[in-house]
């Protein structure tokens, strides 16, 4: 199975949200990394057939998904950003409703719903109204509904928002086991979400992919540009403010270790260290505002 985005473009008035994006996606977890406003959500909406591209096309195994219609949507699972729900539905009602929309019969829908609610840890709260759920519980329900039809293409937009660390681990394991022979597109600006489970990472900025590859390939691009140095704790914050600092770690003896992204040695005594994906992210977006624009 191949999902090809061919010069995919979306323009809102004068603003280009997605700019001639081309990529071919194969089964595995694809992490879509980018700052807020980089165009990730717009791209995912087009992939999910809820937003018409201004230009370009999306092809599934060579067929234009715009022509496939129901056939394509039957293969989709989608958790949108800001997942909307029906406050007066119970979680089970909601799952049964989604199962009906995805073509399940009553009995199969109920079985599959209970199974997924079990997998996301909501089975004991299945008959509670969704409006009484915490943010994390709602997000887990969103993940469950996206997976109910065992989709071949699973699109998750900021799936870990609102999840606590334990829930994030559970989510990662769930996705990792689910992703066999399926395309999972996971959009986030939280680096650790994709670091552990993505087979391939695409970095998006200003509506375009600026980088792509495996974790190792991407991280290698930051090699030699990540530095650490020890300094006086009182000077650490001031130094960090005038450099592209990744981290300042204070020690109990009054010293601090400053981690900096820089093309050249930032200060005497600084040594290069192994880069991480977060370092690469900072390297790419060092000059960007929160909306992903330079």
């Amino acid at each position: 199975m191949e999902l090809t985005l061919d010069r995919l473009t979306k323009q809102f008035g004068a603003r280009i949200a997605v700019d001639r994006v081309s990529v071919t996606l194969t089964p595995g977890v694809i992490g879509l990394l980018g700052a807020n406003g980089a165009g990730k959500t717009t791209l995912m909406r087009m992939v999910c057939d809820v937003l018409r591209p201004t230009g370009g096309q999306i092809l599934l195994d060579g067929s234009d998904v715009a022509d496939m219609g129901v056939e394509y949507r039957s293969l989709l699972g989608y958790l949108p950003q800001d997942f909307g729900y029906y406050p007066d539905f119970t979680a089970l009602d909601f799952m049964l409703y989604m199962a009906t929309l995805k073509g399940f019969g009553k009995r199969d829908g109920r079985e599959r719903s209970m199974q997924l609610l079990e997998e996301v840890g909501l089975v004991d709260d299945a008959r509670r109204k969704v409006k009484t759920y915490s943010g994390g519980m709602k997000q887990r329900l969103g993940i469950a509904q996206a997976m109910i039809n065992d989709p071949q293409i699973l699109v998750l937009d900021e799936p870990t928002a609102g999840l606590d660390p334990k829930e994030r681990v559970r989510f990662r394991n769930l996705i990792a086991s689910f992703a066999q022979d399926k395309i999972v597109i996971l959009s986030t600006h939280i680096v650790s979400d994709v670091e552990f489970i993505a087979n391939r990472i695409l970095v998006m900025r200003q509506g375009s992919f600026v980088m792509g590859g495996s974790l190792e390939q991407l991280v290698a691009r930051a090699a030699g540009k990540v530095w650490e140095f020890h300094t006086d704790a009182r000077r650490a914050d001031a130094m960090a403010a005038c450099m592209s600092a990744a981290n300042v770690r204070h020690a109990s003896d009054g010293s601090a270790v400053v981690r900096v992204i820089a093309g050249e040695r930032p200060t005497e005594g600084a040594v290069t260290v192994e880069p991480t994906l977060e370092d690469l992210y900072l390297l790419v977006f060092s000059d960007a505002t929160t909306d992903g624009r330079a």
Partner: protein
Amino acid sequence: MGTLVRFELKKILSNKAGMVACALVLVMLVAVATLNLLTMDTVDGATGNLVHGFEAQQAYRQMQESHAGTLDNSRTAEDVAAFDHADQLSKDTRGLSGLSSQEITERYGLPFWQETRGILEDSYYREVVGTLDSASPRATSLEGGVKARVDGLLESGFWGYHPYTDAEKAYWRSLVDDIAWPLEWGYDGGWHYALTWKGFSGLAIVALCVALSGVFAGEYRDRTVAVVLPTRRGKKALPIAKTIAAFLFTTGYWCVLATAIIAMHVGIYGTAGWGMPLQVTFGLDNPYPLTVGQAVVASCGLGYLVALGMVALTLLLSSRLRSTMPVAVIPMVIVFLGIIGLFSTPLAKIALLTPFSGLSYAFDAMVSYAIGPFVVGLPMALAALYGIMLVAFVPFAVHSFGKHQVA
């Protein structure tokens, strides 16, 4: 599809504002009808006393039943003679016009009151004699009187402002010709009130539009559209299921409302009068050749069609707008502008095409619309307008939701 429709109905029923609006309309209808009965007063023909509430209702019923029968020429001649005698006797009795009914009874006795003021103030005599007097010289048959009265109305135009075309005049005269002469007269209490209340179903339509404002727009507002659209049945079956659910809700609510209005009035005022001609209820200048029962059924059906048309408009707005507020407000504005429009005679014929005003006057006034030789009365105009809205708007709404862009 059945399961989807059930879920959509559940969503409609969980719209608290809509359910409150629907319940309020029902409560208001019951409350005002009860208040009407309690504040009713009339002069009891048997005693000459002014009576109130249930007593007034009973007195009115007895008076109407005392006139029951076929209004053929000999009967109307007797009625005219009685009225003329009462009129002459009143004129001949000095100072009588300045006395109240109670004072006449006290001074001259009950039989004298019954022979004079009791006849002159009886709406039956005023209606029959007034109609016969529409012709000059006075008509000798009620049919002749009615035709003369209708002719007079046709010549002066609708509300004295909108002239009738020749085609419209011919249309109304042909309806009058179709009335079953001679007319039957009698008591029509329950059905009478049920019919006069038909306009208030316009308020129920407002409540329905509020209840259904979120059918599509609620999905946009709550951002659930992004979840439901990219599914196997999200773009085609779902909007159809939503539409079916909206119309099922409309049908259910309409049945409850019509049943409540009819049961309440028939329960209070009785079931008599179903087969009476509509002229007993709306006056002898009413040109519709229908019985009261036929008019009740036609009004319920017409109201239902108007409701469906307005619901179709609501669904269209709901599929196009992202907020439920304007979706609820626009039908409300249409209904209330229609009421206000009646206060402006030049705009009256347009205002009568809106739900509240239209249903109030349907089968009750000579409102017609002519395009060349083609003429339709108000009920048919309403049926055509709201039928077209129903047929035209629903496919647009379904299509619009399926093509919604989550931006």
